[in-house]
């Protein structure tokens, strides 16, 4: 089988499939495996059975070590650019390779959304993920005075990672009337003196050839700017942390049907309780199947790895059943509580659509 994308979902899928004895080709367009884990310097929560209390970068290393023990063929700096059924065309080092597989798991993750405003094209305006890559992977600070737009977990976490890198986060602004991310992350930056301004949006970014200032404004209950609440902040970087959307180019190429789910980030590939899409033998796992978190990505990866290995005959139906029940229970736990319930509902609906799409109409 081919697994496209070696972030947490892809790594987990590769582990389960190779543990069962299946032959796996793990493909990634980057020069390293690990996906988003490589940039996550903060400690994770979530399933206490799995990786709670460990930093993302260490989770990545742990999974890699486990994977090294099995035989996985890994192809890096490899771009899957065309699919014919289960045959992949891969561009690597300016050469094209054709790879025939029996099962495909797409674990390509998600990409950042953007908002636009006057001045948004000025150098200095960047995705929060891009800022995180600069500080945590390349150890370069994007600037000194940062305005963070968005108070979801990405906005909050990247804010304190920028503070750790020596930058001054001047403010976090959030259009909604409440903070989007976890209290734990919000508290950290509040303690560091960063104001989180809810019901605020950015009006304009200014500067001579690059960001030098930004004007923010308060919003009323109808999302309209309130007169005389404008403030201009002196900043040299404006980070956009306004959400992620699944990277569905490859599933679309494969003919997988999608559905729009605002909760899950946008268009998501329809999948059933085994992570199988509407195209038989093609699975999805992780953020590509709905933007959630690392621990749900890992469990969905496990589920896709187990289900596809079972279909290939490497795991018996009974053993697979038990393994899947265990994984689904963990997923249910991860999706509980005030932050998880809307995702749990969205995923339940998605899986229901996936299950019913298996039935052929007469």
């Amino acid at each position, binding site marked *: 089988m081919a697994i496209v994308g070696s972030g947490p979902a892809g790594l987990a899928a590769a582990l389960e499939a190779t543990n069962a004895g299946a032959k796996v080709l793990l493909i990634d*367009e*980057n*020069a390293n495996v690990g996906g988003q884990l490589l940039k996550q*310097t903060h400690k994770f929560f979530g399933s206490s059975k799995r990786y709670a209390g460990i*930093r993302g970068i260490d989770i990545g290393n742990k999974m890699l070590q486990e994977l090294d023990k099995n035989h996985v063929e890994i192809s890096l700096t490899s771009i899957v650019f065309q699919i014919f059924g289960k045959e992949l065309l891969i561009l690597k080092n300016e050469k094209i390779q054709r790879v025939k597989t029996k099962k495909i798991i797409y674990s390509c993750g998600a*990409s*950042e959304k953007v908002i636009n405003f006057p001045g948004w*094209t*000025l*150098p*200095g*305006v*960047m*995705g929060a*993920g*891009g*800022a995180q*890559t*600069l*500080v*945590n992977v*390349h*150890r*370069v*600070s*994007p600037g*000194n005075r940062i305005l963070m737009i968005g108070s979801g977990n990405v906005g909050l976490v990247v804010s304190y990672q920028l503070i*750790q*890198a*020596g930058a001054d986060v001047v403010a976090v602004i959030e259009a909604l009337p409440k903070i989007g991310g976890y209290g734990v992350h919000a508290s950290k930056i509040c303690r560091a003196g960063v104001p989180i301004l809810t019901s605020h949006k950015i009006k304009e970014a200014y500067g001579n*050839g*690059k960001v030098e200032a930004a004007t923010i404004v308060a919003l009323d209950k109808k999302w309209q700017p309130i007169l005389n609440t404008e403030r201009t902040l002196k900043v040299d970087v404006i980070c956009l942390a306004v959400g992620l959307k699944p990277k569905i180019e490859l599933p679309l190429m494969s003919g997988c049907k999608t559905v729009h789910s605002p909760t899950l980030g946008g268009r998501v590939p329809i999948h059933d309780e085994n992570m199988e899409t509407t195209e038989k033998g093609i699975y999805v796992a992780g953020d590509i199947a709905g933007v959630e978190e690392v621990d749900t990505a890992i469990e969905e990866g496990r589920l896709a790895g187990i289900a596809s290995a079972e279909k290939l005959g490497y795991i018996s139906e009974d053993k697979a059943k038990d393994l899947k029940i265990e994984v689904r229970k963990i997923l249910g736990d991860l999706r509980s509580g005030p932050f998880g319930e809307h995702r749990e509902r969205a995923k339940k609906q998605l899986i229901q659509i996936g299950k019913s799409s298996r039935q052929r109409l007469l």
Partner: protein
Amino acid sequence: MRIVKHPILGPLELKKNINIIVDDKIIKAYEGEPIASALIAAGITTFHKTKKRGDPRGYFCGIGLCTDCMMIVDGIRNVRTCITPVRGGMRIETQKDG
């Protein structure tokens, strides 16, 4: 600006120093890092200019998706500098016409 001290990542590892040439100026870089990283560390924010209005564009997504970071590298246009590693002696130019 290079982050020399970091509470979690520790002190900056000693990596091999190399020189790259950006618009005929010599810029220091670390071997293996993306071109964009070296430029931002050196305080360079404009990577290319748009064709119609000559508006400056710089680093945006950092993941090779948006093409805002593209520059002419060793004579080749439209190179995404956020995912292309530096090499000693590389010639990099601001792409001024789109």
